[in-house]
Each structure stands twice: as structure tokens, then as C-alpha cells.
């Protein structure tokens, strides 16, 4: 199992023009780790995955599997296996033949192929479905066949390209658990692309947060949650979007309530944005703001509190189910739970 390393890697949209998907990307995916590439649509996370697979070229720099430079190596020689978003099953073949196709191309003897296919089918509870065609399977079953096709090749790395995005919520949760279990059992390097940051947080050993500007942060879920490197990561990661308040006169009432400081003082300290997670904001008796909206989430509610003098609300998570539109409240947040960012969006320490 290799470490997968990008060294000063570039990727152009078109090899003939100077427009880049990535420039000077340096990324080290450790062997055996479950690494998630997350980011909004169009940020290049699938492109990055496809570069690892060999389906996209590396325009500049190096892609290394340990000491081996793989830029020019075709996909099948890299020893990786990919699971596609829309399954990409071979519609004219049965489940059995779908799983075994790569082994047949590789020239494995029939008996050996049969044993590997049955083993993969057993792991994924596909034993009863081996003679069916993909059109006769449900979405979840098709995804398991796609995973089976990957498992059977005993790859050095699994590459998942948004494999659960076509499934309903219940099935997504179930398949997520199966993928996590697969990684736990086999310990194979896994690179997983998703736009769902909740999925990223639950599955990953480490997360690569990408934006259209490139790599924003690479760290563990806790690091990204507790110490986001910039405003983009802060706003992107977390079940509920962080409250990000720009340091300017229009947001003075919010800033004063959150930090106890004036806009002038914050600006003088070089702070451009103040952040506070809804989970860290406590709603208490007071009249600084009034409830505009309550999103009931079961045991908790996400309350939108419009602070007097502000144009937009802050959000806070609460277990108080009595809150409703128009109720007056104020808020408290512990100083160490506040996040400070500079004018360019970079993380700063507390003033």
C-alpha cells in the first residue's frame, strides 16, 4: 500500500491554455488512511481523485506512489480501484461477470476468479444476486456491486467518487457504515470524494478541504472543526454553518454582543471576521434580539435570532422547545469558543 503524494502538481483545464484547476499542489495521503476530499461543486475534488486513478493527466509536477512516479502509468498499472458516482456497471453483464470482469482481463484462471468473486459477494451480501443484471437491482445493491468490483481486485487504494450521492438518506447512512467497516477491516488506503461535509466528518481520518482557489486545509476532523484555517473552512465544515460576522459598522451590534468589544478595537487588532458556531452560542433571558425563525431538528432547534440594529440574524442551537417567533432573548458565548480571522480570511489568534 503506497503513500500517495502530490509534489508541486498542476492541473490545467485544457493542456493548450493557461487556466488551472490546481497550481503547485502539495498533498501527502498516508498509507492506510481514510482521506476525504470535500468541497463545493466545481472545486476540483473529483479531478484530483481522477488524477490519482490515472483517468486525468497531471499537467505539471509529480504524482508519487511511494518512490514511484506514476504520472505516465495507465490506470490498471497503478493498482487502484475506483467506485463511481453512478456505479458505471456493465449493463449487459450479470453481477457475477461485473465483479469478475477485471480479473478476466487480467487473465486469472477461472477457478481463482470464481473464488474471489464469491468471497467479495459474501462480504457485500450479494450471494443471492449474482445472476441478476444491474437493471434488476436497487440503487444500494448496484452500489455494492460497484464496491465488489473494486474489492475483488485487492487494490492498493480505493478511490470513491461521491458513491452515495444517488442514494436516499436512509440508504446513504447504511452504505456509509458499510464503507467505514470495509476500511476498518481491510485498512486499505482510501480516498473518498464528497460534497457533504457531514459525511466527511464521520468517515475521515483526515480531510482535504478544497475550494476553487485550491487546497484550503488538510487535517483531522477535529482540527478542521476546532481550528479552521480560514473563513472558507470555518463556514464549510460543521453540521450547522458557523456564524461569520464581518468587522464593520453594519454588524456592530452583533460584534459587541459576541465579543464585548467595539468594531474599532477589533479592526485595530487586525481582525476582519469573527466566527461563532451555533453549538457554542447560548440563548439566555434578555432583549437584545428577537426570534425570527425556529428550525425544529428533533431534540434540538436551530434558532435564528435577529439582534436589534442588525439586518441579518445569528443562529444558535438550543434544546429549549418553547421558543417561537417574536420571543426576546440575548446570547452568550465563551471567549475561547470565538474564532478570529484576518482581512484576507486567514485564522488569527484571539486579540
Amino acid at each position, binding site marked *: 500500500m503506497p503513500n500517495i503524494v502530490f509534489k508541486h502538481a498542476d492541473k490545467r483545464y485544457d493542456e493548450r491554455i493557461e487556466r488551472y484547476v490546481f497550481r503547485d499542489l502539495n498533498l501527502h495521503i498516508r498509507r492506510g488512511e481514510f482521506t476525504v476530499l470535500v468541497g463545493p461543486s466545481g472545486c476540483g475534488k473529483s479531478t484530483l481523485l481522477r488524477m490519482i*486513478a*490515472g*483517468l486525468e493527466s497531471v499537467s505539471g509536477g509529480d504524482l508519487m506512489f511511494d518512490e514511484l512516479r506514476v504520472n505516465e502509468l*495507465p*490506470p*490498471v498499472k497503478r493498482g*487502484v*480501484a*475506483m467506485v*463511481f*458516482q*453512478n456505479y*458505471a*456497471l*456493465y*449493463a*449487459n453483464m450479470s453481477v457475477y461477470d461485473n465483479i469478475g*470482469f*477485471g480479473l478476466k*482481463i*487480467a487473465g486469472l484462471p477461472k477457478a481463482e476468479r470464481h473464488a474471489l468473486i464469491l468471497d467479495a459477494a459474501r462480504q457485500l451480501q450479494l450471494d443471492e444476486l449474482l445472476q441478476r443484471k444491474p437493471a434488476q437491482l436497487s440503487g444500494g445493491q448496484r452500489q455494492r456491486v460497484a464496491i465488489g*468490483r473494486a474489492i475483488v*481486485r485487492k487494490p492498493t487504494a480505493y478511490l470513491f467518487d461521491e458513491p452515495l450521492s444517488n442514494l436516499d438518506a436512509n440508504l446513504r447512512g447504511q452504505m456509509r457504515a458499510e464503507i467505514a467497516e470495509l476500511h476498518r477491516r481491510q485498512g486499505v488506503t482510501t480516498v473518498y470524494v464528497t460534497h457533504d461535509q457531514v459525511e466527511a466528518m464521520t468517515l475521515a481520518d483526515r480531510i482535504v478541504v478544497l475550494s476553487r482557489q485550491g487546497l484550503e486545509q488538510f487535517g483531522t476532523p477535529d482540527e478542521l472543526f476546532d481550528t479552521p484555517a480560514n473563513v472558507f473552512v470555518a463556514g464549510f465544515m460543521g453540521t450547522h454553518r458557523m456564524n461569520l460576522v464581518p468587522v464593520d459598522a453594519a454588524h456592530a451590534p452583533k460584534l459587541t454582543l459576541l465579543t464585548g468589544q467595539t468594531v474599532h478595537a477589533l479592526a485595530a487588532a487586525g481582525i476582519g471576521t469573527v466566527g461563532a458556531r451555533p453549538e457554542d452560542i447560548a440563548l439566555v433571558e434578555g432583549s437584545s434580539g428577537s426570534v425570527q425563525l425556529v428550525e425544529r431538528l428533533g431534540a434540538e432547534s436551530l434558532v435564528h435570532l435577529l439582534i436589534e440594529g442588525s439586518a441579518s440574524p445569528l443562529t444558535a442551537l438550543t434544546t429549549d422547545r418553547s421558543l417561537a417567533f417574536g420571543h426576546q432573548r440575548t446570547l452568550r458565548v465563551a471567549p475561547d469558543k470565538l474564532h478570529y480571522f484576518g482581512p484576507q480570511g486567514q485564522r488569527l489568534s484571539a486579540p
Partner: protein
Amino acid sequence: MKVRSSGASEMAKSLLHLALMLLAGMVFAYPLLFMVAASFKPGEALFTDLGNPAALLPDARWSLNNYRAVFDKGAVGAYLLNSGLIALLSVGAGIFINSAAAFALAKLKWRGQGLVLTLIIGLLIVPFEVLAIPMLLIVSKLPWLDASGLTIGWLDTLHVQIIPFLANAFCVFLFYQFFKDVPDELVEAGRMDGASALTIYLRLVMPVCKPVIVTAAIVLFLGMWNQYLWPVMTVHTAGARPVMVGLQQFFGRSTQWGEVMAYACLITLPVMVFFLLFQKQFIRSVVGAGIKG
């Protein structure tokens, strides 16, 4: 009251629709039915029965005499065989050649493919008559190696009626449009499994393209079966003559309309059978039912 009148007007609409469809059907079907009926009658009956719908029905005058005469007077059996061979070989090889070209254009990446595609689409608007003379000059000089040795010139052969038409711009474009709808992930999954481009084309993509294969087969079959100008230009002996040229020759030798109609029936029958066998797939392909990967 309102429900009843709406039901009556719906019935009237359906009846009108049916009447119009029947009329249209009769307009299209009448010439074919006339041809079949006339082929069983003596020649003079054809003119006396014109305009009489009952003439389409079998009567005492019906016999197989015209068909016997066709086989006696002309080598229609041999011509049918020639056209059959030409059409079937063209369909077989043409589907492979044109689909392979379309696959390379639609699913592979190589320098110049945009230009090649533009040229192929451009060829769609060039009439065959523009190319016929240059093609004739070329085929009259090309060498051919077979069991009897090396000959120069392809004239008066079956292969001169097949090989120049295997690459068909319309069929390439038909396959190209279909392949564009096949998800790229299917090809990529094949690449990840280690399949070559040829394997992906033959074992992964072509098996899901049955409707368009049938459409291309029908287009190629009809085109090759109905060929007339090129065989007239390149084939002057009976040995390689196809049915359409044979019909023209027969028409020149026989003024018995009943016999001409019998000949026409004989050469129409294989086309009808071919179309009837594959009409479902043809219609599905024409109305644009695609394949989802």
C-alpha cells in the same frame, strides 16, 4: 348532462382520428397492394381494373404465371443472390467499421478528432453523384488479389459494389450521437479494469447499443439493396448484376406489366421481411430511446 356531451365529443374525435389514419394508411398502402395484386393477374387486367378497389381482392384470374415468366426470362434468382450478398456483407462489415469510427470519435481522445468529425459531417451533404466519377476512375485502377491472382481494376465484381460504401458518413454520425449518450464512466470503469479500447468497444459499449445497430443495419441494407447508379456504372456483366439493374433490364425486355409487377414484388419482399423483423428496435431508436448506464 356535461359528462355525457363530453363523452360524445371524445368519441367523435376518436372516430375522426381513426378515419384520418385509415385514409393515410390507404394512401401509403395502396401502391404496394396494387403491385401485389397486379403481380398475380394477366397484364391487360391491370389497366381494366385501375380505379376499382375490388381489384385488390383475389379472383379467378389470379395465378403464378407472371412469376414463372420472371424466372424464365430473367436471371432474377442470381440477381437476388447478388444483392443479398452485397447487402448482408455491407451490413456486417459496415456496422463494425462505422461504429468503430464513431467510438473513436466519441469516446477516445486524440489529436485531430474534431477535424475528422467535421469532415464526416460535411460528407453528409455531398451528393453521391458528385463523387461517382472520381470513384469510378479510382476503382478502375485499384489492384485486387484473390485466388485467381492479381488483377487491376475492380469493375464487374461484387466487391466494387461493397467496399467503397462500407464507410458511411450517416451511420458514423448515427453511432456517434448514440455513443455520446453512453456515460463516460462506463468507458472509464473499463479502463480501470484494464480493458483495452477495443475490448471496451466490443464488450462494454456495443452490447448496449442494439437499437442503433438495428437502425444502422436497416439504413445500410436499404441503401445497398436499392443501389442503381453505381452498379450501372461499374457492372456490365450479368455475373455481378444486382436486382435493381436487373429490374431495369427486365423492364426493357418485357412490356408485360404483370411480369414487371411480379419482379418488383420479388425484390421488395426481402426488404419487407428485414424491416418487419427489426421494426420495434428501429422505431425505438428513431424516437430517441437512449441507454442509461
